[in-house]
């Protein structure tokens, strides 16, 4: 009898639901462009792991390895940036938490103006400054300590605090202005907000996300023989994200940068006051792999001292959790 066929396995599909929910949040990568992609601060099961692999192609008048977005008027850089990292979710003070480390690497080339005002063509490559990030949820759903918690997760309105710190051990050549390492400590304090709009059903999820943050920069005391100081950078990222299907989503992205006035041996540079816009498309390939594609570009950037940046980014993130992997082994997958 058909109407009782379902009794045979009343739990069919349970694992795939759990899997789907597990990987949603953790697969979005941290990136070193000082812009956090949409859906990064969604929460997932404590104990989940993720390894992001990110490839970025950019052009602009700022060094993509430089979170301060220090403008080099008239310069045009082209760069390819790759990021590899590791993130892990856990519970701290009965709140959701995450720690991540990212190592940027890549190459960049272009014409730069030296502090002496001379145009120089440069090409550099190597490892950048590794970044560690710590995130803790302050307001919002309880941590997901078990799969039932994952099943019941809805962000509603959630507020986190994040702290990033870049460690100045990347490759740096003090004789040239363009480097992948920044030769100074820098970091960020921010308060990510995720605001759920409507139902929390895969295929129909909509969020409005904000990340107000301030970047703080130490001094680079060996910047082509000079000292580079940078004022704090205030930045707000905003994303309106929406599922198209259960596995396919998109986001309209915007960012505002203000501050980060650079001073080189007392000579002041320009203060940033720029907007950027972009879009992101995300697709969850399977239970372990997520793919995103994004493009971002600064707006109102015709003046030489405006921030000019456009970036293509593709990210592939692998996520896993021991429970899920064990279940798959038992199923012979």
């Amino acid at each position, binding site marked *: *009898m*058909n*109407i*009782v*066929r*379902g*009794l*045979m396995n*009343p*739990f069919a599909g*349970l694992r795939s*639901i*759990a899997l789907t929910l597990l990987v949603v949040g953790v697969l979005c990568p941290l990136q070193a462009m000082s812009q956090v992609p949409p859906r990064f601060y969604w929460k997932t099961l404590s104990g989940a792991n993720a390894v992001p692999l990110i490839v970025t192609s950019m052009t602009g008048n700022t060094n993509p390895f430089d979170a301060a977005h220090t403008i080099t008027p008239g310069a045009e850089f082209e760069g390819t940036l790759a990021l590899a990292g590791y993130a892990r979710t856990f519970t701290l003070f009965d709140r959701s938490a995450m720690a991540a480390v990212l190592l940027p690497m890549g190459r960049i080339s272009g014409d730069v103006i030296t502090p002496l005002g001379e145009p120089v063509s440069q090409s550099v490559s190597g490892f950048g400054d590794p970044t560690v990030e710590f995130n803790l949820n302050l307001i919002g759903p309880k941590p997901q300590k*078990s*799969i*039932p918690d*994952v*099943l*019941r997760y*809805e962000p509603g309105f959630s507020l986190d605090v994040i702290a990033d710190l870049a460690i100045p051990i990347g490759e740096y050549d003090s004789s040239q202005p363009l480097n992948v390492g920044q030769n100074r400590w820098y970091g960020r304090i921010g308060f990510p907000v995720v605001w759920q709009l409507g*139902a*929390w*059903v*895969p*295929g*129909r999820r909509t969020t409005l996300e904000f990340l107000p943050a301030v970047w703080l920069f130490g001094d680079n005391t060996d910047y082509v023989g000079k000292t580079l100081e940078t004022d704090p950078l205030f930045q707000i990222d905003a994303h309106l994200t929406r599922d198209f299907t*259960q596995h396919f989503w998109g986001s309209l992205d915007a960012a505002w940068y203000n501050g980060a006035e650079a001073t080189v041996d007392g000579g002041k540079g320009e203060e940033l006051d720029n907007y950027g816009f972009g879009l992101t498309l995300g697709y969850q390939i399977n239970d372990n792999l997520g793919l995103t594609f994004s493009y971002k570009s600064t707006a109102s950037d015709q003046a030489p001292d405006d921030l000019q940046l456009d970036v293509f980014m593709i990210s592939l993130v692998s996520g896993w959790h021991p429970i899920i992997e064990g279940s798959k082994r038992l199923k012979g997958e």
Partner: protein
Amino acid sequence: MQRLTHQLDGRPDRFGRFCKGLGIVGAVAALAAPALALAQSAAPPKRPNIVVILGDDMGFSDMGAFGGEINTPNLDSLAKEGVRFANFYTHASCSPTRSMFLSGVDTHLNGLGNMSEFTAPNQMGLDGYEGNLNDRVATLPQLLKDAGYHTYMVGKWHLGKEPNQIPAARGFERDFTLLDGMGSYWDDWNFSAANPRSLYTEDGRYLRSLPKDFYATKTYTDKLIGYIDANRGTGKPFFAFVSHQAPHEPYHLPKEWRSRHVGAYDKGWDALRQERLKRQIEMGIVPAGTELAERMWFVPDSTLLAPAARALMGKKMEIYAGMVENLDHHVGRLIDHLKKIGEYDNTIFIVFGDNGAEGNDLYELIAGSPGSRDFLFAAMHWSRNHPNAWGDPGSWLAYGPAWAQVSMTPFSQYKAWLAEGGIRNALIVSGPGVKRPAGSINTQGTMHVADIMPTLLEVAGTSYPKTYKGKDLPPALGKSWVPVLEGRAESPRTDQDVLAWEIFGNRAVRQGSWKLRWQWRPLGKGDWELFDLAADPGELKDLAAERPDKLKEMVALWDDYVRTNNVVLPNRSPHEALEKALPQRVPVQAGYPPLNLKRQYVPPKDMLAEPKP
């Protein structure tokens, strides 16, 4: 006296005029009193309104008044003011029950010898197997209407869709009706490609579309309140059949009702059945010592489930509970309105579920196999089945056999079967005419849904006729509850009276506390089983082998039922291949096998040691 005489002699003064006036008044009063008394005795007493509330697939133990943990204050208030019956029988599925309620006649005579969805080849075209309420029976609303009642219906009909079969043609003056047996609560999507749209009528006209802001349970209540108010000025009582779709699957529920019990059911079905049984015993719904029926053998021990499985399965029950609570809320709106307009105290309420809780999964039937037509239909219209979407339009949720057994605590099995879990349901009667102690529980009376017809006709001051519009009527199956409601009797039946059922080839007979049952394998034995319900309400012990004398006696009653009620056993049944579809049936005993129930052994501390080098 002299003065008085004087006055009467025609010399009226002021006092005299007063006394004369008194005398006239007195004389008039004396003359008028008997006439007034006569007039009062001749005027028909004010007859009560009647509201019959049906919860579609609502289980025996779901309401708080029957041991459920679900929050049903409004239904419970009716129980508190009235009387509960713990021995009330319906049929095992919806349209057969509704047909008996509305006609008072056995299903094999009234057209529902089988559900229209499952009419067997050998039943096609036979009288009594039309699949709709046939024209050889009179209906309760027809007879009440003839007796001077307004007659209203809202909700699910499932007794025929043709113009001569719809509620307006069967005695309801006003109706807002879902003609199908199920469908979306949010819109008019139905469940199969062949029948994609639910059909609704309003006052006898087929609706092209549904009202704005339609949600079945709410809209049905709104409509009924409107009907009641529209005819208040006529002075006539009303009969309202509130045939709620809720809590039948798919569990469609406004979002604000879905999250009231998050995690509450993670404890699992076994624990919940125990809790409900405990409350039922404390309340007196079932006697002390009642044993729970066996858990279905293909349902796992809920304590062995992983937390995720418990959470996911528990969420199904959370939403089902929300369905029942939402139903109760709208019943409360109706009650409040009747109180507001002053009709509540003159209204009889009858509340019951139409059959056992639904343990089958119709979604499987709908979705079928990939590549089938209905699979594509389900993919388009019924695939919003992420747990967070449960309750939304386009979702399909049913709670399955494990929770259905909870809803039918303490009984065995569920809807579509003739175990007690398929046909025993909760019954509440309250209002004028109920003279039993408020809040009392009757466990002695063997009540049947067909009894409602003669009961309400008696309440309305009429009776079941032998003919209707020139046609002879089949005999009424039921017996009036009036003596029971008035406390003059404990049961409308004697121990010799017989009740019998047949649907899909499953058969049952009850006489006194004995029950004879034949069911398709593997839920039955494909043979007669015999139970003593007084000692074994959970139908755990088949006495067929021990009591061949009683078995023979009961089989004879079955044969008699077949002869007198036009029973044609189906040559095809939806249950016919079930034995091959389900796992092999094995007894389910708590604690067996102990294999994965054994706890870690902890040795004595003083015997612990590190390994020697």
